[in-house]
């Protein structure tokens, strides 16, 4: 079974600062993928970043990066230089059938 835990229901950050969202997971698969999706108020689900478990190098997409600790089954998302448009729900997900966490509501304050 796959489970995903996001322990921070809500977070806030000032514009231009850095914030880290936490995610831990459990899976019985040997090879899997991890994701962060963003859901703004428009409700559209948008892929932010993806990490392949067999790759040790942490994935980076512009201002978004992850800290992937495979042994600890931890997959946190770091958002640098936060922008007002980053305000959204963020969901961590794992593997093919995309088990999601309950989400973290991020608010970026001006």
């Amino acid at each position, binding site marked *: 079974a796959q489970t995903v835990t996001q322990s921070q229901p809500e977070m806030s950050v000032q514009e231009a600062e850095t914030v880290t969202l936490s995610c831990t997971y459990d899976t019985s698969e040997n090879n899997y993928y991890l994701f962060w999706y963003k859901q703004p108020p428009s409700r559209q689900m948008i892929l932010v970043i993806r990490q392949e478990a067999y790759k040790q190098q942490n994935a980076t997409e512009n201002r978004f990066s992850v800290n992937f600790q495979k042994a600890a089954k931890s997959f946190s998302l770091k958002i640098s230089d936060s922008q007002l448009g980053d305000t959204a729900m963020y969901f961590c*997900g794992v593997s093919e059938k995309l088990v*999601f966490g*309950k989400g973290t509501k991020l608010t970026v304050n001006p």
Partner: protein
Amino acid sequence: NAGVTQTPKFRILKIGQSMTLQCAQDMNHNYMYWYRQDPGMGLKLIYYSVGAGITDKGEVPNGYNVSRSTTEDFPLRLELAAPSQTSVYFCASSSDRHTYEQYFGPGTRLTVT
């Protein structure tokens, strides 16, 4: 490309009614998925399909049925609607299991009263 489209956007059902949520994608993706998102919660997988004619259950399949007769379409059928099925339903697709990047539709908000 329209991507993933879903109809209707909103629907109110009475208890015991049935309906079909439509989902179509024009990206020639083999994989398609149905999720539900309850208020304040993440997405839960209802059913998925790895190609035309092949479907499988996800985490919460009870009360739903699916079919996949073409690559493009993946309708979700609700039989005997119940208040517990009040949710936002998302359809998604991906090109293959190795990319895992899913493209989501805009969602259907369903209320059962």
